[in-house]
């Protein structure tokens, strides 16, 4: 898939408590969560962020809690994708599972600044920074992870498997 969006740059170790503080975890509605996304690191962020924007973080993005509310809040705010140097494991899984695209590209992260426009192709695996004209190669998804992405998310993949299993048991019984 191809994306083009404006960058919001954050630092290393952006944790799930600043992405969506626990006081807002009484819902899993993405739009409601989006009203508070990143507010503990930048209180104006929920007002400033626009549809199609790109969040760029450093190392260990999404560390901390298992709360899927974190990628849900980011997606709910209209953010098209997150690019980082590396991701915390649970956040990575959660994002893939709910269909929030993630791109791992340390070189592009190092050069990106807030306000830059990035063009990202997650299928081909490259990032272009339109300000510098530089093109970067992004790390591809593992094939198993790509299957989840292609299915549209984990539950879609599981539902398809359940359907197949039932069709097979129906055929043999």
């Amino acid at each position, binding site marked *: 898939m191809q994306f083009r969006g404006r960058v919001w740059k954050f630092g290393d170790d952006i944790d799930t408590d600043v992405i969506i503080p626990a006081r807002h975890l*009484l819902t899993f509605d993405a739009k409601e969560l989006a009203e508070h996304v990143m507010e503990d690191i930048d209180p104006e962020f929920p007002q400033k962020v626009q549809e199609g924007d790109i969040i760029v973080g450093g190392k260990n993005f999404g560390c901390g809690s298992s709360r899927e509310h974190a990628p849900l809040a980011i997606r709910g705010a209209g953010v098209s994708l997150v690019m980082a140097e590396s991701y915390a494991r649970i956040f990575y899984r959660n994002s893939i599972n709910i269909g929030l695209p993630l791109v791992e590209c340390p070189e592009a992260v190092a050069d990106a600044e807030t306000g830059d426009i990035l063009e990202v192709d997650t299928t081909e695996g490259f990032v272009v920074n339109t300000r510098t004209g530089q093109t970067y190669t992004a790390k591809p998804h593992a094939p198993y992870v790509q299957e989840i992405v292609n299915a549209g998310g984990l539950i879609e993949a599981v539902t398809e498997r359940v359907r197949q299993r039932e069709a097979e048991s129906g055929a043999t019984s």
Partner: protein
Amino acid sequence: MGLTMAQKILAKGAGRESVTPGEIVEVAVDLVMTNDVTAPLSIAEFKKTGLKSVFDPKKVVFVPDHFVPAKDIKAAGMAKIMREFAHEQGTLYFEIGRAGIEHVVLPENGLTRPGDIIIGADSHTCTYGAFNAFSTGMGSTDIAAAMALGTTWVRVPDTIKFVYTGTLPPDIGGKDLILHTIGKIGVDGALNSVMEFTGPVIDALPMDDRIAMCNMAIEAGGDTGIFPFDDITKGFLDQVTDGNYTPFASDPDATYSRIVEIDVTNLKPVVALPHLPSNVHDADSVGTDPIDQVVIGSCTNGRLSDLRAAAEVMRGHQVHPMVRCIVIPGSQKVAREAAKEGLDEIFMDAGAVFSTSTCGPCLGGYMGVLAKGERCVSTTNRNFRGRMGHRESDVILTGPRVAAASAILGHVGTPAMVESKAPVA
């Protein structure tokens, strides 16, 4: 080529002889857990699969513990979704008043067994590595998929071996060891890895301290922490299980991505200052700026030995007049045992609150939320910005002894600093 204990458990779960770090495998799960924050989304996602029932109700467990006893109507609604689904499906369920914090309750009930693969929609699910299980945190959708299929996918992690040597000073506990370790390797020092805890110090370490160490493996980015099975593990499990489990040991020629040796002989009690668990300093070196609150409890340090350690420091003293001190037993069982020993009286005599079990304050949920500018010394596991309340509040992590001492002193301090003060009896 030899395997680590974590690799062996994953290989068993995948029905294979061995697994290799980096590969993705599908494994059968022995226990799937969620709580009142994460379960409602898991249940909604599970229902999308069209399945009428979970793969095995005896292997699915729900624990309301984060916002309960319900702090408001929304929290009550979340807990209700979980309770109704649990009863409808006939899964394991632990109601408040009969249970407590998930990572305290599950071990108490013999549900965390050696060799098991346990996943939970709570990042501190890594706690159960203390019992030689492979246990790890995931999100709600992963848990929904596991409730449907009875399996999950895992990228086989590397293993980092931590070897603790030397003589453990008497006032150093598991929390000091893990904070020191995270301080050394950083909050992403074990990213995509298992932290295997070994060495002569570990061989003698009591169960509650092992639990506190595994609990915080996630704070170093680890998939999980894991301990070898030994007589101490067996002693705990003999009280709560039928002994029907299979422990796994690492092969002598197992491959580790890294070996980290830590001599504990000269360690001092430590604290992690805001806003990262890796910002570790000696507790007697951080000055005397006033604090506003102390929390003793949580899935990290809410067990009986933690409360005993805190009570020992607090006995005969008063909580500083400018400090709120909240003591939270990790479970109903811990509360009962603490009361039997009179620990509750020591805390209340000192002017502390002795509460029912809840995760509330740890995540700024309720019952101990910090105002702008407030500082809290806490035995919980995370001190990220805004974790316990206002974004301009501070959480300082430590073990139960330093927390109790700080409550009395009104600033970060050690039991030795309290002893130099005359008791207020």
